[in-house]
């Protein structure tokens, strides 16, 4: 045991004395959370819009004010002709244009029916549809208010509730994703690299010609990364709760335990890669291409898996991060208990045993 702890201590020396490693290990999660939280957001906020108000009456003015007052829109300019709309879109200064026809107020009060045209820049289809949805909602709200006191023959009112994430915040989606990515990066890549580095530097040669069992070497190399991952899990959770306002709805102990399970899967993968790779570059390449990309693509954190072609959906099942992502989303955001994620947990456990078995089987007790 003393040998083992001495090895772990040595491993911490390696980590703490290499600033680059330190930064990747501890800075990466914070940087990723901050980048995803504030820069790479797909939420729509303060989108510029223009108005071609041909009515210029009390109703059109208040409708425009409603739009401008919402946090989704920001009035950029008042236009005077249809041609200007095109011009503004081409300049890229607006994302949405609202056209209010003549006699707007008149139509409302006398015909009980008025039209508003909403024109969106659909070069980014997602943003365009989100914006028109928001604009429609605001216009409908406005209509409801106008109707107060009056009775229509019949109305169907839809009441939409966005469960678990009423404000449709992107953070609810990417916090689980970043957790999966960071754990994978720290555990898989760093473990693989650190073992392969010993091979490259020749220190593995001396370690093998020592009483230390090879298995102990490998486990001792993984321990520091397991501990650092726990620090990372805690720092990501703290950041998401206190900076991004994403609450932890479920059992925090369950969340932590599941995270440790995923960490172990990632570590086992790292060990497996290290037994196959001969150089640090190869190890890094396998970890990045073989682990990182599938995680981003198939975990469901950037692209919904349900919308993928069937073969890709099947492939996504072998990506551990997909299951972990589901677990975190369920436990952290939805607040469900173990009963809801036992299947994912079982799959991850199976993967852990498989990868660990493979890694131990492939570990070389000699040089060649």
């Amino acid at each position, binding site marked *: 045991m*003393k*040998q083992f702890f*001495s*090895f772990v201590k*040595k491993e911490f*020396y*390696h980590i703490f*004395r*290499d600033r680059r490693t330190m930064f990747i290990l501890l800075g990466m999660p914070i940087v990723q959370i901050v980048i995803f939280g504030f820069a790479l957001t797909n939420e729509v906020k303060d989108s510029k819009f223009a108005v071609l108000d041909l009515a210029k009456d009390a109703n059109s003015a208040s409708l425009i004010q409603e739009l401008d007052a919402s946090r989704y829109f920001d009035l950029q300019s008042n236009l005077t002709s249809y041609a200007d709309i095109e011009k503004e879109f081409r300049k890229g200064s607006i994302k949405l244009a609202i056209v209010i026809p003549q006699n707007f107020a008149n139509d409302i009060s006398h015909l009980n029916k008025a039209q508003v045209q909403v024109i969106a820049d659909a070069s980014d289809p997602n943003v365009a549809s989100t914006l028109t949805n928001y604009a429609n909602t605001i216009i409908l709200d406005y209509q409801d208010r106008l109707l107060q006191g009056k009775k229509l023959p019949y109305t169907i009112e839809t009441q939409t509730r966005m469960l678990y994430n009423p404000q449709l915040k992107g953070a609810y989606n990417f916090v689980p994703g970043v957790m999966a990515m960071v754990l994978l990066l720290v555990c898989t890549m760093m473990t693989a690299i650190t073992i392969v580095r010993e091979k490259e*530097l*020749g*220190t593995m*040669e*001396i*370690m*093998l*010609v*020592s*009483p*230390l069992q090879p298995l102990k070497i490998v486990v001792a190399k993984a321990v520091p990364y397991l501990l650092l991952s726990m620090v990372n899990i805690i720092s990501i959770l703290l950041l998401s709760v206190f900076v991004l306002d994403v609450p932890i709805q479920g059992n925090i102990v369950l969340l932590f335990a599941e995270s440790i399970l995923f960490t172990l899967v990632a570590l086992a993968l790292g060990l497996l890669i290290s037994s196959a790779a001969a150089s640090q570059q190869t190890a890094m390449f396998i970890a990045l291409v073989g682990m990182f990309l599938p995680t981003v693509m198939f975990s469901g954190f950037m692209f919904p898996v349900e919308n993928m072609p069937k073969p890709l959906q099947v492939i996504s099942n072998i990506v551990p991060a997909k299951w972990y992502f589901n677990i975190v989303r369920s436990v952290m955001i939805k607040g469900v208990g173990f009963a809801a994620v036992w299947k994912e947990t079982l799959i991850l456990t199976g993967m852990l045993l498989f990868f660990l078995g493979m890694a131990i089987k492939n570990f070389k*007790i*000699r*040089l*060649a």
Partner: protein
Amino acid sequence: MSYAVTIASISKTYGAKQKLVQALSNISLNVEKGELFGIIGPDGAGKTSLFRILTTLLLANEGHATVDGLDVVKEFKAIRNRVGYMPGRFSLYQDLTIEENLSFFATIFNTTIEANYDLIKDIYIQIEPFKTRRAGKLSGGMKQKLALCCALIHKPSVLFLDEPTTGVDAVSRKEFWQMLKGLKEQGITILVSTPYMDEASLCDRVALMQSGKLMQVDSPRNIIHSFPHKIMAVKGSNMLQLLNTLKQTKGVADAYAFGEYHHAVLEDGITTLPIEQVEMKIVQPDIEDCFIALMKDHAAQ
């Protein structure tokens, strides 16, 4: 008397069928307990392969070997407990200090620096003033000393040193061999490989290797003694031209540069050479002369 190391018909090949490289072919030799045994040979002779087989890092294709009476294949775990190994390349942790490296290796081998301090004392004392310096920042000679300390810290019964003096300056080399003598007196069997033929005379016995084959195993004295020819050392003003002249001179079997002289191997019965205005003297053959002759014979076969 039991041997510290026995090697019986060891062969080792690398690579796939098409590009087979014969690293070792049919090597057999024994090393006695307490011996300082040198394995001499140029790069690519197979020294490192042989060391790796003995230290259980590689499996031989054919043959058997034992270290300290233990089979290198079946009892590799026991061997790993009791040998000391210093690979050719500096293989300590560069980002750890001298002290940290040493205490790490001591712990790995279930011992402490204090327990075996007397063994490494003479060597460690030379690098102790720098003990808080990281190993990566040490000079070549100091690195070697540290690596030797780390290989010795668990009082191994057999010590394997793979080219310990390659890339080390002449003074440090001398010191290093002095240290090996000291260790030998403590009863440790030492196998050391080196490409420098002048180091052969410092060993009790040497094995000369070339392209995976063992050419001779004997004590340096016997090797010199069995050298059949006389050697003429020649020195002139234009050494390059002199060497060409020597090679064409009748009665000279071979000629090559040897330090500040040229050595001419004389054919039987020849005692002088018909070359003028040069310094000429018959000298005792050096172990290097024997090796050069052996290697040339071998290459000619």
